[in-house]
């Protein structure tokens, strides 16, 4: 074997071995910090439980109070009907109009049903019977839903009383709920949680761990090693790449088996999309770490510039189409937005690979630009 080739091989050997030992070093950093480790692994589980169960606007057992000055057959029948439904439980009978305000101010009551006087008589003869449904508007969506349910129940009673059975000119709607027939909140949130957790692990953790080496002064020691600086950075990113794959698996397993959200489309496309997104997140983390010098700043920047927009603007919590145009425009440059759309297309809607080409191109372009910029920004020397 020629000596030059030997040297080359020797160099390669060093590169490979040192790179692996650098990666091993990073893994040790993570494994030895038990608390962070546990939290990083538990975080996706917690998020899925919270999003799956806590974020729901399902209305059931809403507490209602009733003011009924008539106390006749009709009002009592209506109250019985309301109490019998699964949506309401009657918890309080009010004695005067003035109590209404006080009841709401104390909280706990969602709806107050107020009948007017001589209800039954008015209903049968003059047609001036009135029932007011006063909801607590400080929670708009549930107020609307609760009022909707209550008026349906009262309307049903009305139909019963008037014995309108064979109604002419009836339009029967046949409602088909696509993709999520049980209207589970989890279908909407699982893709969002994936986007958020992957961003958190890849970008935030990578940037903090590099910033820590800078802060502690150990970065200098790493930089004088025979490794090329770029490999040092890559070895920093490697464990978080692995960790994010573990989390991705946890999320998918839990969402299928615990929350009952199926993977309707191709598994391979989903993984390809996720890998591209992970690269974008890692690149973002590296970019941040090349700018900052302290952990606190790295934290604040990744919190303010990454996490907040991901939570607020990516469509994870709040529908993008409701936002003012300016924010819709900003949301275009948030990687999580594209990822979430792609995951929804494949995982929930079950569409094919062609449906995510657009998203893949955008994310791919982001990855290329971010990696390019962060390589350019990367400094070998410390000031």
């Amino acid at each position, binding site marked *: 074997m020629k000596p030059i080739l030997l040297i080359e091989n020797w160099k390669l050997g060093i590169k490979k071995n040192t790179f692996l030992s650098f990666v091993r070093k990073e893994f040790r950093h993570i494994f030895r910090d038990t608390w962070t480790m546990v939290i990083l692994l538990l975080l996706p589980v917690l998020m899925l439980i919270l999003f799956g169960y806590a974020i729901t606007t399902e209305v059931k057992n809403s507490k209602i109070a009733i003011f009924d000055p008539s106390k006749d057959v009709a009002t009592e029948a209506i109250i019985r009907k309301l109490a019998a439904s699964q949506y309401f439980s009657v918890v309080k009978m009010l004695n005067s109009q003035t109590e209404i305000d006080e009841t709401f101010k104390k909280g706990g009551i969602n709806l107050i049903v107020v009948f007017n006087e001589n209800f039954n008589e008015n209903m049968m003869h003059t047609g001036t019977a009135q029932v007011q449904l006063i909801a607590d*508007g400080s929670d*708009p969506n549930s107020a609307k839903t609760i009022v909707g349910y209550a008026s349906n129940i009262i309307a049903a009673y*009305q139909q019963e009383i008037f014995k309108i059975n064979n109604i002419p000119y009836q339009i*029967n709607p046949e409602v088909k709920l696509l993709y999520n027939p049980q209207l589970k*909140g989890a279908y*909407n949130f699982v893709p969002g949680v994936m986007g958020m957790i992957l961003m958190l692990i890849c970008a935030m953790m990578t940037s903090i761990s590099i910033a820590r080496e800078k802060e502690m002064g150990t970065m200098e020691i790493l930089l004088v090693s025979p490794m090329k600086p770029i490999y040092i950075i890559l070895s920093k990113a490697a464990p978080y790449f692995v960790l994010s794959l573990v989390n991705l698996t946890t999320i998918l397993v839990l969402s299928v088996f615990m929350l009952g959200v199926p993977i309707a489309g191709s598994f391979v496309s989903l993984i390809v999309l996720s890998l591209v997104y992970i690269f974008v997140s890692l690149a973002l983390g590296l970019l941040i770490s090349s700018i900052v010098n302290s952990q606190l700043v790295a934290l604040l920047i990744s919190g303010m510039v990454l996490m907040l927009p991901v939570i607020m603007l990516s469509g994870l919590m709040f529908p993008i189409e409701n936002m003012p145009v300016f924010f819709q425009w900003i949301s275009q440059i948030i990687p999580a937005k594209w990822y979430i759309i792609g995951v929804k297309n494949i995982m929930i809607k079950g569409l094919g690979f062609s449906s995510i080409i657009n998203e893949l191109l955008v994310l791919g372009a982001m990855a290329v630009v971010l990696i390019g910029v962060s390589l350019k920004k990367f400094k070998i020397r410390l000031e």
Partner: protein
Amino acid sequence: MLKYLLEKEFKQILRNKFLPRMVFLMPFIALSLFPLVANFTIKNTNLSIVDNNHSPYSERLVQKICSSGYFRLTNVSSNYPDALQSIELDKADVILEIPPRFEEDLVKERKATVMISANTVNGMKGGLSSSYLVSILTDFSAEVRSEWFQSNTRLSAPSMEIIPRYSFNPQLEYKFTMIPAIMMMMLSMICGFLPALNIVGEKENGTIDQMNVTPVSKFTLILSKLIPYWVIGFIVLTICFFVAWAFYGLVSLGSYSTIYLFAAVFVLAYSGFGLVISNYAKSIQQAMFMMFFFVITFIFLSGLYTPVSSMPDWLQVFSRFSPLRYMVEVLRSVYLKGSNPIQLGGHFAALCGFAIFFNGWAVLSYRKTQ
């Protein structure tokens, strides 16, 4: 002694490049922007119509749906697969398919069927928009029916009137619900995260050892760490009040002193919690993640986004352990309903309990020895 310790803490905070700016800017930015974004209102639902009938009746129905204000007609497709594709591309949210014999059925059979397909990836939106559409259809058939009644008989049914009313927020503006909640979020972000990073920051810098060799008691030390965040809490809250008034014209119905009173206890409790985390954490990174873990849990259980009463029962029990839940309820009640401290007595007791518990824990868990 406390005086000098406080002087030290304030100097440390003020000399930091980031912290003072963050305390002023974060609530300002968050409160001026978040209410615009945090909007769960269901509006502008995109509708795709497949009208296979093209009769006066079907056109009238389409007209009625479009003028309801809930729906935006985005495309008219000639067949169902085309319409389905517009849902797949997110161009439409709901499809209304009118069958070829719609008018004939309606007039001759007196009964017609239409098909509604809703995209329910977002269950809340899909469910609400399809039920809006159903109620418009019911209205439409009532309209047609009353025309028929008028021309045929003199039949009039006695009836009652159902009047919906929404107290405290008659327009059902989502931002008025969110603003008090965002105030709470700012308080808990700033007065929770900063203390959590405080002691552990001193641990990382090694300056905590200098504190440990002084004769300062654990209690005084924790108190000196708490008071600055207490002051910061009041500053944050005042900025929030100002922004809510200046940007959104939202003024509290109840008295501001009530809010300050509750906030004083809340910040004390929550900063205490931050210090507990700080005592146990070994590095800033660890403290950050522990705090993130708990804050996320507390926020979701607080009913900030969706009402606590919708959660499953076991989760409602857990939500009692989130101090944020009490504070959200207090802020919303005082701001929107004008509740007074007596009506919120239970909440006050709960917050006091949290304050004593967390701060007691913070004092006990602080170790001068390693």
